[in-house]
């Protein structure tokens, strides 16, 4: 095995931010390669700064390196300046750990967290030195794998990737490693056949898809592959206290802080939210383990900030107590010269679970940005999308923040939601104005940043049948909002590029035919498409036209209930009839209560896999309606698996 470092080093004097290519992070390696081990190159298909903090990749990196039969290193997409030099000097994609070429590995595995990275995936496979199309790879060529949220409709990448993993990767990476080790002497086909038989693994070559017009038919080609690929779910997060050694980068990255995942899954049932649908059920990490991971993590890394991550962190049982303990005791050293309090950031906050008490605990350290996501501007529309937060909930949260010294809060909304009217869109402006008004009672110069994204319907959600708003319609709605807010000095409006929203939508619900478009855009130089300065709308439209595909068919039309969807042979556990019923309920403006506090709706995620919610408390935490639309004042225990019996603050 030959390190490429000596060839790479002279190039690094010529590129921007060379530190992102040197590795050497605290917590990295050591990579111990051996002929009988399966060598994984885990790749995040975006720049190092965006990819390094990815927790999924770090978790698998550690788990694989702890195994005696595997070794794992990491790679990230080289920025354009280095890529040019690499291609000129014939240098392949390399690992940042020991700077080995990708060809030295057995598996190149991607984390797919956004559709707009798909062209980067192709570029990286190409840089790795193998054919981009799976069918053109043979023998000892790298096996290309992928996992992450986009794997729940991986069809656009089906021609390029050998296998996908659906759901939690903690257990299945071990099974994949064992299958590769056991079967590789029999050749590539035998390995793929073995992978296709592993629960949670989807091998596209095992299925044939034929298209006629809008309908598709999927036939199984290999008898060992399942009819429907079911996702993997770990039943207890407490069994997987990873990352134990979070990587500490030597150069600045996004989310540059300690990250501790406090729970996985979400039961709020927001209908637009793919993450909430595909990661069910809720699995809380035991509070004691969370505390240990925070204490040990801060000591080991030297960070002074910790993010408690999940899809809705304020829902964590006993969150107030946890935040108070993490921030530390009240600062006795009034001189302020001593070690300051630990900053806690809660990246995803529901307004209905954000209490004044929580705000008070957070503000004892440095105040990080507070982002609330009401998502829609009217109660009617919030019922449609099942984000059941009332105006009172929002008022209380915003008031909590401003009364505890925050001067600005950020509000996140979607436009282009099903049944949306101009009245709903203008409701966003009214809501923002109201927040500023509430804020000015507490702080002078209170302001609100309104961030608006275009809604992209996602596979495996109740909105998978919905026809996305056109680019023109999204532009019109944003303009309507901008016009209405023009005179408001306290409100700042930001919005996501509607053209990028469309491309995300094309890829999100695309089928195998869309793969040709991705390849076309990549070959035309369209990489780093999630970076607005690199995003090239024209390339995508041209490619769609060249391949005879219609934007209308892929994104704008409403799909029918009888249509076979491109991802119907892949399952996140949710029954299709449950999703359809939920879609009908949405159109009827009928909300669905949080299943954590009510009897089961049998969506399939728990019952289908014989698992259940794992939470520390069978009663809801205090504060607001909790977005359930329910009266939670007299909470009754619900049938969940309980973690611990410690008393909870704030529960009467």
């Amino acid at each position: 095995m030959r390190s490429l470092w000596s060839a790479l080093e002279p190039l690094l004097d010529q590129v921007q931010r060379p530190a992102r290519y040197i590795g050497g992070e605290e917590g990295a390696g050591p990579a111990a390669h051996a002929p009988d081990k399966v060598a994984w190159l885990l790749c995040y298909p975006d720049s190092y700064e965006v990819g390094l903090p990815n927790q999924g990749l770090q978790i698998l990196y550690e788990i694989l390196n702890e195994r005696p039969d595997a070794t794992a290193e990491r790679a990230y997409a080289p920025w354009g300046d280095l890529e040019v030099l690499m291609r000129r000097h014939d240098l392949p994609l390399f690992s940042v750990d020991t700077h080995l070429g990708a060809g030295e590995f057995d598996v190149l595995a991607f984390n797919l967290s956004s559709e707009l990275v798909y062209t980067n995936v192709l570029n990286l496979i190409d840089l790795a030195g193998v054919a981009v199309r799976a069918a053109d790879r043979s023998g000892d060529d790298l096996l290309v794998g992928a996992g992450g949220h986009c794997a729940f409709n991986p069809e656009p990448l089906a021609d390029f990737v050998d296998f996908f993993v659906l759901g939690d990767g903690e257990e299945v990476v071990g099974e994949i490693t064992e299958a590769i080790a056991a079967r590789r002497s029999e050749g590539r086909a035998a390995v793929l056949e073995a992978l296709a038989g592993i629960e949670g693994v989807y091998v596209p070559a095992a299925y044939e898809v034929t298209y006629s017009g809008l309908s598709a038919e999927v036939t199984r080609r290999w008898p060992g592959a399942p009819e429907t690929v079911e996702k993997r779910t770990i039943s207890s997060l407490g069994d997987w206290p990873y990352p134990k050694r979070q990587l500490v980068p030597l150069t600045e990255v996004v989310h540059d802080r300690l990250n501790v995942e406090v729970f996985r899954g979400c039961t709020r049932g927001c209908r637009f939210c793919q993450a909430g649908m595909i990661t069910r059920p809720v699995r809380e990490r035991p509070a004691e383990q969370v505390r240990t991971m925070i204490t040990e993590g801060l000591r080991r890394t030297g960070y002074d900030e910790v993010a408690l991550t999940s899809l809705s962190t304020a829902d964590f049982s006993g969150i107030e107590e946890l935040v108070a303990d993490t921030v530390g005791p009240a600062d006795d050293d009034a001189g302020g010269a001593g070690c300051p309090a630990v900053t806690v950031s809660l990246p995803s906050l529901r307004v209905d679970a954000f209490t004044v008490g929580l705000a008070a605990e957070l503000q004892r350290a440095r105040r990080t940005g507070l982002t609330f996501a009401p998502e829609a501007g009217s109660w009617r529309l919030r019922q449609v999308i099942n984000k059941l937060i009332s105006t009172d909930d929002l008022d209380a949260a915003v008031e909590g923040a401003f009364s505890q010294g925050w001067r600005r809060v950020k509000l996140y909304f979607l436009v282009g939601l099903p049944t949306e009217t101009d009245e709903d869109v203008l409701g966003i402006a009214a809501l923002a104005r109201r927040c500023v008004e509430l804020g000015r009672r507490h702080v002078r110069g209170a302001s609100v940043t309104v961030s608006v994204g275009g809604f992209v319907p996602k596979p495996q959600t109740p909105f998978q049948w919905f026809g996305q708003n056109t680019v023109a319609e999204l532009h019109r709605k944003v303009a309507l909002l901008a016009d209405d807010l023009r005179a408001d000095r306290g409100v700042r409006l930001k919005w996501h590029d509607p053209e990028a929203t469309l491309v995300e939508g094309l890829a999100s619900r695309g089928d195998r035919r869309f793969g040709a478009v991705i390849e076309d855009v990549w070959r035309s130089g369209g990489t780093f498409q999630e970076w607005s300065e690199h995003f090239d709308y024209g390339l995508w439209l041209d490619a769609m036209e060249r391949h005879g595909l219609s934007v209308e068919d892929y994104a704008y039309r409403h799909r029918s209930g009888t249509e076979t969807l491109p991802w119907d042979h892949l399952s996140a556990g949710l029954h299709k009839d449950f999703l359809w019923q939920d879609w009908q309920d949405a159109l009827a403006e009928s909300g669905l209560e949080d299943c954590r506090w009510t009897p089961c709706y049998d969506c399939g995620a728990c019952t289908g896999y014989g698992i259940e919610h794992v939470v520390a408390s069978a009663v809801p935490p205090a504060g607001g309606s909790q977005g359930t639309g329910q009266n939670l004042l007299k909470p009754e225990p619900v049938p969940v698996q309980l973690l611990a019996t410690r008393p909870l603050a704030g529960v009467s």
Partner: protein
Amino acid sequence: MRVRVRWSKHGKIRFCGHRDAARIWERAVRRAELPVAYSQGFTPRPRISFGLALATGQESVAEYLDVDLRTTPEELYDWAACMPERLSAVLPDGMTVTDACPLSPGTASLQDAVTSCTWEFALAESDVTSAAGWAARVRSADSLPLQRERKGRTTTSDVRTAVGDLHILDASVGSVLVAELGTKPRAVRPAEFLRLIAPPLAAGRVRRLHQWITRDGERYEPLAPEAGVLAPAGDSLAAASIDAVPAAQQEVCA
């Protein structure tokens, strides 16, 4: 109470810039569990004063920084004594603390005090003769004009007095050009110095060997007693620091 630290940077870590290094240091002083003092305000940070910035890609055996500790004068020596080992253990590969000494109150900051730096430029075998010829011409020259851009305007200044000793030396890694470059009133940066050399050298490694404080015609390193380092009678710590010559420098001098 302030402690001055000497550290080195070599290998892959040379690609981390000054800002990156500052972040690494902030985490390192926390991980080393030193009683470091913090700044006040909305974002309290460990009180570390960095010396002259080292450009991304350059190595050094003579980096310095000053750290403020919350400790008594009695304990200060013990803390300083343990800092090289404690900090080196938590710094990434390629960053090593070679010395640490308490400073007397009121010592001038590194930024203010340092007047020149000695740099080492690796020479390609084919450049040795022409570099030697250029160095000889500069030694006998009265002026050395350097063109620089500032705020969109090109100015030419004579930097002859800012370019001190020039030597070609044989080190184990090959020949090197060693030059002392002034930092005041305006520094001649290594990259600017390389532009002066005609014909231009092939790109090679750049390493800082010394930082100097010149006072009354005498040169001191920032960890010398004359530079403000506290050296009570019989204290071996400070005395040792003056004699400590970085390994790389010994190699060059040999």
